[in-house]
């Protein structure tokens, strides 16, 4: 118990007498009926879509007029409500719009809500039970699923960690990251379920990947957490999901990856829109972000070339462990990794961090992979 009331209400005679008086006489205070708030009657712009957050963007309640720094609301009073004197300071640490806001965040929330799905019932698990995988493919797939489960568990924890730190006036962002935590928890659930239905169970956690996940979790600001989680890590994982769909052994596995891909792409979308907002409204943070990405890229390189991460992709894309399978798998995996890097820089360019491409050492990795593929005559 870390927070105590300023009085014991049962021992507060004035408070108790007021309650008893109301009970005895039926006389109510009703001063809250005169709250200094706006009378509004919001309606759906599109009835098929329903009543959306965008429909609530009206004078007195909307998000369009949010200030850069929220000073007035320090508690959980919903934006637009009257805040009486004496409310506690909940000590949210994220109180600047530029630290958290994203273009179209209200649209991403609605999309996230409407595109929820169910890991237990939306996958034809019975069909998967009949799918027999050769041992090396099955084990490689189980290893990939082990890695993805690890990743999704941290991706659940990071938005959940920040949710309570974000000022209540940013309700659309809070709802988005709450839904993201739900999405990621569902991903951890589905990958665990799939791993335990392959016949091989879970395989091995990766040391390098775990260090990368610790880095992701321990970001010091929401924007640092967002640029590395939403944009860098989830951008890479999005390409990974598309690749995993591409190499999936069954139709049901493909469906699983299409469903997780949708959620992941939405999180990447939020990350891009936040970074664009940040670059426009707080461009001074550019160097801080570069420094954070520098280390994030270092961790990422360690993670994606960890044996437990790299090798399953090679085996799955080459479809086996024979020399010709491995050769083919190395080429396909190399092309996939080049695609990951290209898309990462494309997204940063679009958000205004165009100089990341020149400053990043990931370019060295890109060139190494390119030369390796060229030596094999693959490109």
């Amino acid at each position, binding site marked *: 118990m870390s927070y105590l009331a300023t009085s014991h209400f049962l021992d507060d005679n004035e408070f108790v007498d007021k309650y008893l008086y109301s009970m005895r006489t039926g006389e109510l205070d009703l001063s809250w009926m005169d709250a200094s708030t706006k009378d509004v009657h919001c309606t759906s712009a599109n009835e098929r879509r329903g009543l959306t957050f965008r429909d609530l963007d009206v004078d007195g309640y909307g998000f369009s007029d949010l200030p850069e720094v929220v000073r007035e609301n320090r508690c959980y009073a919903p934006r637009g409500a009257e805040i009486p004197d004496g409310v506690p300071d909940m000590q949210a640490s994220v109180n600047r719009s530029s630290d958290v806001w994203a273009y179209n965040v209200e649209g991403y929330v*609605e999309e996230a809500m409407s595109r929820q799905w169910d890991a237990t019932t939306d996958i034809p698990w019975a069909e998967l039970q009949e799918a027999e995988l050769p041992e090396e493919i099955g084990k490689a797939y189980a290893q990939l699923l082990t890695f993805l489960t690890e990743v999704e568990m941290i991706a659940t924890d990071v938005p959940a960690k920040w949710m309570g730190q974000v000022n209540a006036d940013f309700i659309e962002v809070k709802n988005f990251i709450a839904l993201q935590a739900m999405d990621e928890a569902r991903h951890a659930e589905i990958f665990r379920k799939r791993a335990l239905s392959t016949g091989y169970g879970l395989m091995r956690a990766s040391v390098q990947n775990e260090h990368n996940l610790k880095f992701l979790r321990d970001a010091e600001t929401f924007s640092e957490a967002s640029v590395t989680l939403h944009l860098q890590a989830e951008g890479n994982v999005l390409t990974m999901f598309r690749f995993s769909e591409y190499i999936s052994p069954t139709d049901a596995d493909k469906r699983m990856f299409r469903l997780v*891909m949708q959620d992941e*792409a939405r999180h990447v979308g939020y990350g891009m829109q936040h970074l664009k907002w940040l670059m426009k409204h707080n461009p001074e943070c550019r160097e801080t972000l570069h420094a954070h990405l520098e280390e994030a890229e270092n961790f990422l390189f360690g993670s994606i070339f960890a044996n437990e991460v790299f090798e399953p992709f090679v085996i799955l894309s080459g479809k086996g462990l024979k020399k010709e399978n491995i050769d083919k798998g190395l080429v396909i995996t190399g*092309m996939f990794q080049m695609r990951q890097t290209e898309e990462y820089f494309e*997204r940063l360019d679009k958000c205004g961090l165009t100089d990341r491409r020149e400053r990043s050492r990931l370019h060295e990795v890109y060139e190494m992979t390119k030369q390796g593929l060229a030596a094999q005559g693959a490109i």
Partner: protein
Amino acid sequence: MKVDFPSASFFEALNDRMAQEQDRFTRLGYFDTTFGVTVVGPGERRRNYLLNFEVYECMGAREIDNLEGEDPDFVLEADIAQWQDMLRNIQSNGGADTDHGINTLTHFGEGMKVIYDDPERHDKLFRFSESIQEYFDLAADLKIEYAS
């Protein structure tokens, strides 16, 4: 009734089926994107279609001369043989199999190219991946006359 592929009437037939299967698409969620389809061939011929999806349905599918002025989120482009192969596969399996899904065909651009200018709008292909796949899977029971 037979529909020609490629043609605007082919996509209109898919839209009719989509309207009949509203529960399926409502379950998948909002589907807000405008994308292009380009069918290359026979020969040098290019036929372009613009598909506009909003909420749970396709609001319009039309053939246009040039997609460039239309500003789609992305364009799926393949030669006619590839489109026909995909549709025949959908028809024989009741939906695309592991080698004929849109993501698989476009992943390395081997079978089908994804053309885009803006990475954010390109990502809509993935944000609405399942809806897009199920839209094309609606061709499973169409009677299709293929251009030769």
